[in-house]
């Protein structure tokens, strides 16, 4: 027998939900920043004239893109302690797992962005005496990132939702916290509805921002 809905359960559990949200946001931000940094390095390696870095980056990306995220999370949780000899805890293992996983996806977005810059732009930089790295750094990457902003943000929204998978190593992200409260206080409908609304609002705001940026950068 289900009683009347009681949404006050949200307010009496605000601290748990908020702590969950902090984990979700921490993971999202770290994976975005780390993923883009690492993804940029991977993309430059993949586009390198040298075979070895291009090959290594290619295999790295293939491996992560062919593996379900949940498996990557498990892997780092159980495998890293075997390698390092001591447990690093759930939070660090998922931070590493998410960053590496996202970097594989960001790599492909960034690679496409870099390839969208026409060769004569690079030539113009080189003709001025810039080195290859300087031309990449000052001419190619700024333009590439401008073209990529919408795609990078879209990937970030997906990532934000994927953080809910960390429950498998016992971390309490926002959704896991909501689930915990729901089953403990027997307020399943209220909590799942609240969680859905929160995800919907945050992701919609993100999408809106993407669309605004797309208009702004459209020629």
């Amino acid at each position, binding site marked *: 027998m289900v009683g009347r809905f009681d949404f006050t359960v949200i307010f009496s559990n605000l601290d748990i939900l908020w702590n969950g949200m902090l984990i979700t946001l921490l993971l999202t931000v770290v994976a975005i920043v780390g993923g883009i940094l690492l993804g940029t390095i991977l993309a430059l390696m993949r586009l390198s004239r040298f075979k070895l870095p291009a090959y290594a980056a290619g295999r790295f990306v293939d491996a992560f893109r062919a593996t379900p995220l949940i498996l990557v999370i498990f892997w780092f949780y159980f495998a890293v302690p075997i390698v390092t000899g001591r447990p690093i805890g759930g939070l660090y293992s998922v931070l590493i797992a998410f960053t590496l996983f996202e970097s594989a996806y960001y790599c492909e977005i960034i690679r496409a962005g870099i390839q969208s810059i026409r060769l*004569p*732009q690079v*030539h*113009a*930089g*080189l*003709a*001025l*005496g*810039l*080195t290859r790295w*300087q031309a990449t750094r*000052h*001419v190619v990457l*700024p*333009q590439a990132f*401008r073209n990529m902003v919408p795609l990078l943000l879209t990937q970030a929204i997906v990532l934000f939702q994927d953080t809910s998978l960390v429950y498998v190593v016992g971390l309490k992200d926002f959704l896991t916290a909501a689930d915990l409260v729901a089953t403990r206080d027997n307020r399943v409908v209220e909590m799942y509805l609240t969680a859905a609304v929160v995800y919907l609002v945050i992701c919609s705001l993100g999408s809106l921002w993407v669309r605004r940026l797309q208009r702004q950068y459209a020629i």
Partner: protein
Amino acid sequence: MIEIQDVSKWFGDFRVLSNCSTHVAKGEVVVICGPSGSGKSTLIKCINGLESFQEGVITVNGISVGAEGTNLPKLRASIGMVFQNFELFPHMTIAENVCLAQLKVLNRSRAEAEERAAQLLNRVGLSNQAAKHPAQLSGGQQQRVAIARALAMDPIAMLFDEPTSALDPEMINEVLDVMVALAQEGMTMMVVTHEMGFARKVADRVVFMDEGRIEEDARTEEFFGAPRGERAQMFLSKILSH
């Protein structure tokens, strides 16, 4: 100053340059003309190493461009290049375009670079456009910025790769005027162009290319007076018929 000796280049099996030899002396202006696909742009890009070549030697001030161990960035910094499609950096302002390589390559201070940029933009008649972005400028204005950007490196020679081909007719002269002034000041220049009026006015020599070969290499008055080769005559009659 620029020596090109027996340069050949292949794209796969296709030979784009066949035993090209010519030279540009200090202060000389050489115009390269010829039908499209004749290898003019490829040849001029070989001079600063943007294109590689398989045979022959190109030296700039005695430094071999194709040699192993040549500091290409340093060599390129000393030769200005202007492209058909301007190739200003769209994410930077006009002033930043002119300052970038001064800061990163010549290690000038920002104040020094900005002063030089202002001076050169003034010279090409664009001193009030410094804060704008390239997309806000007309093609002719963008090309004049591109010339200023190249001059900011204090080059010993300037290469022009069809600098007016992408321009609307009414903008061609504003760019040619800048180039004529540059030539009259004694700048060493190699110019790929179809602007025969420009060639007549300032060129010391005209090089005519066809199918990757240098077919004519003559003093300007000789070239326009009586080009010897049949192909050069045909080419001239085609582009001068209007």
